[in-house]
């Protein structure tokens, strides 16, 4: 049979040969032997690969009269259900969970026709990617537990292509709605971003859209106003604030009248932020990021723009021969990058499998060979993460030391003949430091790092990292803003610059992780700092503060936020979830969530992607930009009045900001039609349309119009394959399972037909390089291209080495996939997996301070007094403490920061 035959050049495969057809039918018959006949009550029904195949192979009559084998199931936690009786022993779950996702708490038990897939006993699946089992399993063994809690048939979901709103990676998703509630999120293949998979935060955070924390009605200090009255009132307020200014223009400068300010948000769309910026004017628009974070993300954007390192796509990562991670706990800061790195580590192309005649598609073969090869993943982070176990080597140090390390590596790379002008190995101990200083003085600038005497541990480590980097032909560097260090960001870029890039790039690709879905879009749009807005308000220069989709208490110390809200006489908050910021607002306008509005988001790699409205929110909820447009009209402002549709905002964006113009083109606009039709959000099998509202009225309501997208809220429309950015579901005739995805790709695993969606807004300027022909091939096995002549002099100066102090620790941020992101924590299944607040200490420090695991410790930082239970994290460097970031209810602290231990006697 073809499935057991090694494919060779020139093979002809007949899938319709009589014997092949019969064999397929037999296999299905065998798979159905123990499979329950529970399709009518099975969650998988209607998108089940086995169901598809059973129908397609024509297996209708049961010849097997004996007993079925049965199993007991486990409770696998809040995300995934378990119904082992449905299992067909395809091993996909195991191959995904263990081989790809690196999970340990899962295996195949037993043998013959009784193989059991799961855990040893009840318990939440430990992998951050467990939700993919739902899609990977071809039957209903693993299903979406959150969907099961408010189940609806898959073909009754109204679906649209969305972009995951819960981190900066921008994974593509398909979100589904029924009866006004979001029911689930599935992966949407994008070969350059997330491929076939999604992380559990991305999959299960959607419940925040349905949650109790939603704002669905305007909230006003003086209640009783309708939405339109409120807008009129607020518009008038705005008009007067702006009006004074208009009068003042051209007149003799007098004491400025208070004016409005706009505070944007990294979780709001590009359009929403742009609308706000237009409304309040460029100099009165503030990004709404924490100041420190803004500096970092702005610098990250600059680094990507300056180049020469391009941001890597998924393909660039997969083609790498070395990955170096600097300062990012990817599992928690950009989970799908963690996954991509794992997958790369397992399948990265090397000469080995070619030599052994293993085809690239033979994942098990390639994986087995890679397992025996030395790892090509190198990690330098503040503390151990889940990726450590597959790394060649890990180095844990304070952020400044990581920066020094990266710079020392850059210097080591061009030390052959070059000079060590910047960076030196970080030193943990004073004596080593002293030795090193002596050596530099003695040996002069061209000293080899390990030239003299017994090398210190640090030197040897540096040399090992450097040797690996020197040998790399296609390295990728991953860093980011998560540990809050500008020095590290600069150093990572300097190091990437010193490394060769895949032609035509002149330097190694550099992925810079940013925290939120539109962090990058926001800084590209540009705006002031929150502290400036606070200053304006403090000076009495703010009449109206327009805050969109942002909880300022997560961005700045509570006292400052409070003062700001008080000082800016009228605070108007437009948001879709309740936040602390709203407490002091004069008015709250209910915004559409990501699932209820179409908008554009820019991912950490500068990729603009359109996320489409899945469902129509109940009035008066509407997209933020529409509220802003309404306010503009009410205030009789020229800007924003004529924005009727999203395309109007985008057109203006393209006009005003040619650099961002491609963002308007990432998906067909609202007027686009395929064969004169819109793309339906509802499946052709959608049921009950005419009966859905029968309890209210037997008359079928008109489907709502969508002015913002070429998608319709109905079953009617173009049924065939739509353009890639508009794929509302993967379905093909007879293929009701996600397996239909194959039909949307140029070839299995290849890009979606027409290209994977999304457009990069940032590409570094093309650097003319003279690369020898031999180095231009794109395989990983070509000889090393010449190293670009990175000018060492342009390297940043290394920060001073971190020195542990006796009574103060350096608190670094610790990120949590479940816990650190604001919106996902409003989804109960995700919140259920989050940790409670704690302070992490290294064991030595804990002992020195008399702190014990689980016992509360009183600490002071940034004038805050906190009492937090201690968690011992062995990998934290001495003198470094860790604090979880972003947990609900925890006060804002800019990290890294100094943390003082309060002793029992009350002295700090």
């Amino acid at each position, binding site marked *: 049979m073809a499935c057991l035959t090694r494919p060779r050049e020139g093979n002809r495969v007949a899938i319709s040969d009589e014997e092949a057809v019969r064999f397929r039918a037999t296999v299905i018959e065998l798979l159905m032997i123990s499979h329950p006949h529970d399709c009518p009550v099975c969650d998988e029904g209607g998108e089940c690969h086995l169901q598809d195949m059973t129908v397609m192979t024509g297996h209708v009559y049961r010849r097997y009269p004996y007993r079925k084998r049965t199993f007991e199931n486990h409770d696998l936690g809040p995300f995934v259900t378990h119904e082992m009786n449905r299992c067909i022993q395809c091993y996909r779950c195991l191959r995904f969970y263990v081989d790809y996702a690196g999970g*340990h708490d899962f*295996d*195949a*038990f*037993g043998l013959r026709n009784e193989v*059991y897939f799961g*855990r*040893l006993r009840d318990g939440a699946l430990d992998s951050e990617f467990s939700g993919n089992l739902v899609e990977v399993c071809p039957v209903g063994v693993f299903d979406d537990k959150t969907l099961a809690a408010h189940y609806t048939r898959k073909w009754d979901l109204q679906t649209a292509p969305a972009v995951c709103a819960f981190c900066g990676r921008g994974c593509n998703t398909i979100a589904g709605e029924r009866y006004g509630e979001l029911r689930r999120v599935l992966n949407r293949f994008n070969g350059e971003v997330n491929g076939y998979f999604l992380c559990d935060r991305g999959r299960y955070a959607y419940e925040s859209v349905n949650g109790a924390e939603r704002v669905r009605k305007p909230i006003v200090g003086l209640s009783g106003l309708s939405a339109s009255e409120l807008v009129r009132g607020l518009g008038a307020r705005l008009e007067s604030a702006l009006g004074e200014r208009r009068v003042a223009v051209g007149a003799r400068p007098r004491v400025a009248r208070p004016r409005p300010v706009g505070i944007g948000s990294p979780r709001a769309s590009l359009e929403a932020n742009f609308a706000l910026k237009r409304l309040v004017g460029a100099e009165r628009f503030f990004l709404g990021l924490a100041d420190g974070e803004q500096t970092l993300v702005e610098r990250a954007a600059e680094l990507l723009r300056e180049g020469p390192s391009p941001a890597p796509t998924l393909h660039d990562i997969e083609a790498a021969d070395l990955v170096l991670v600097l300062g990012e706990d990817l599992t928690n800061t950009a989970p799908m990058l963690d996954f991509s790195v794992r997958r790369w580590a397992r399948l990265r192309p090397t000469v080995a499998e070619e030599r052994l005649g293993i085809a690239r598609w033979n994942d098990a073969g390639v994986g087995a060979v890679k397992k025996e090869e030395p790892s090509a993943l190198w990690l330098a982070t503040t503390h151990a993460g889940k990726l450590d176990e597959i790394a060649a080597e890990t180095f844990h140090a304070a952020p400044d030391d990581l920066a020094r390390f990266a710079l020392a590596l850059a210097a080591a790379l061009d030390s052959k003949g070059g000079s060590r002008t910047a960076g030196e190995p970080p030193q943990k101990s004073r004596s080593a430091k002293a030795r090193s200083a002596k050596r530099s003085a003695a040996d002069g600038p061209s000293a080899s790092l390990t030239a003299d005497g017994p090398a210190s541990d640090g030197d040897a480590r540096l040399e090992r990292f450097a040797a690996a980097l020197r040998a790399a032909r296609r390295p990728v560097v991953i860093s980011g803003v998560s540990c809050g260090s500008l020095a590290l960001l600069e150093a990572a870029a300097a190091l990437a610059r010193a490394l060769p890039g895949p032609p035509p790039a002149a330097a190694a690709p550099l992925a810079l992780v940013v925290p939120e879905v539109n962090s990058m879009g926001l800084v590209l749009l540009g705006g002031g700092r929150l502290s400036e807005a606070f200053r304006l308000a403090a000076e009495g220069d703010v009449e109206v503060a327009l805050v969109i989709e942002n909880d300022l208490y997560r961005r700045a110390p509570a006292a400052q936020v409070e003062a700001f809200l008080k000082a800016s006489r009228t605070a108007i908050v437009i948001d879709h979830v309740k936040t602390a910021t709203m407490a002091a607002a004069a008015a709250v306008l209910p915004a559409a969530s990501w699932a209820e509005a179409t908008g554009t988001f820019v991912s950490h790699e500068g990729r603009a992607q359109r996320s489409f409205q899945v469902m129509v929110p109940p009035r008066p909820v509407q997209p933020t930009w529409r509220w802003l447009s309404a306010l503009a009209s009410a205030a009789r402002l020229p800007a924003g009045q004529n924005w009727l549709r999203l395309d109007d905002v985008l057109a203006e964006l393209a006009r005003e900001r040619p650099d961002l113009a491609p963002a308007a083109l990432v998906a067909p606009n609202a007027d686009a039609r395929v064969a004169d039709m819109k793309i339906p959000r509802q499946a052709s099998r959608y049921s009950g349309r005419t009966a859905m509202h029968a309890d209210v009225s037997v008359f079928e309501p008109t489907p709502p119009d969508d002015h913002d997208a070429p998608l319709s809220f109905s079953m009617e429309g173009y049924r065939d394959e739509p353009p890639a950015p508009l794929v509302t579901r993967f379905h093909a005739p007879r293929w009701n399972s996600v397996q239909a995805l194959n039909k949307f790709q140029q070839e299995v695993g290849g890009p979606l037909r027409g290209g994977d969606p999304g457009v990069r807004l940032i590409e570094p300027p093309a650097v003319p390089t003279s690369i020898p022909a031999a180095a231009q091939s794109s395989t990983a096995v070509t000889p090393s291209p010449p190293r670009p002549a990175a000018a060492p002099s342009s390297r940043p100066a290394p920060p001073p080495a971190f020195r542990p102090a006796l009574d103060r620790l350096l608190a670094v941020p610790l990120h949590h996939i479940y816990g650190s992101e604001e919106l996902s924590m409003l989804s109960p299944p995700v919140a259920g997996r989050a940790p409670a607040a704690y302070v992490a200490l290294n064991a030595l420090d804990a002992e020195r301070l008399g702190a014990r695991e689980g016992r509360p410790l009183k600490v002071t930082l940034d004038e805050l007094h906190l009492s937090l239970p201690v968690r011992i994290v062995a990998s934290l460097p001495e003198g470094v403490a860790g604090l979880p970031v972003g947990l609900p209810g925890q006060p804002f602290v800019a990290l890294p920061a100094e943390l003082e231990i309060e002793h029992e006697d009350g002295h700090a």
Partner: protein
Amino acid sequence: MLTDSERREIEATLHHYPHRRSAAAGAMRTVQRHRGWLSDEALADIAGFLGVSVEELDSRATFANMLFRRPVGRHVILICDSDCCYVMAYEQMRDHIAARLGIGLGETTPDGRFTFLPIVCLAQCDHAPAMQIDDDFHGDLTPERIDQILASYD
């Protein structure tokens, strides 16, 4: 916790393999030899020592036919049920043992003396029907011989 002797015995095999985890199969045999069977706790002990997950160990253990995941009696009778022994009337021997001990296959006598299990060909086909009790082979079985053999295990 592994006992000292368990740990020593496992450690002695570590250098046979390039990876620590590859000693898992042998480690399970070792611990079973000491404890009679592999409890969840035993697996956890081995897992901790070798740095593998209990899932991984149990996956292998439940595949194998010579690792016991449930308590067994003092002596384990493995009666061959493959073809040569079938031809040589193992079924009569099986029924005889079952009647003598008052237990069926897969069961343990109430006094914990014997556990009675089937096994595939013991490579004693030239002495079929054959069985194994603990580490000893017994071939050319007849009901009379079986009675003698059983009597020699306390």
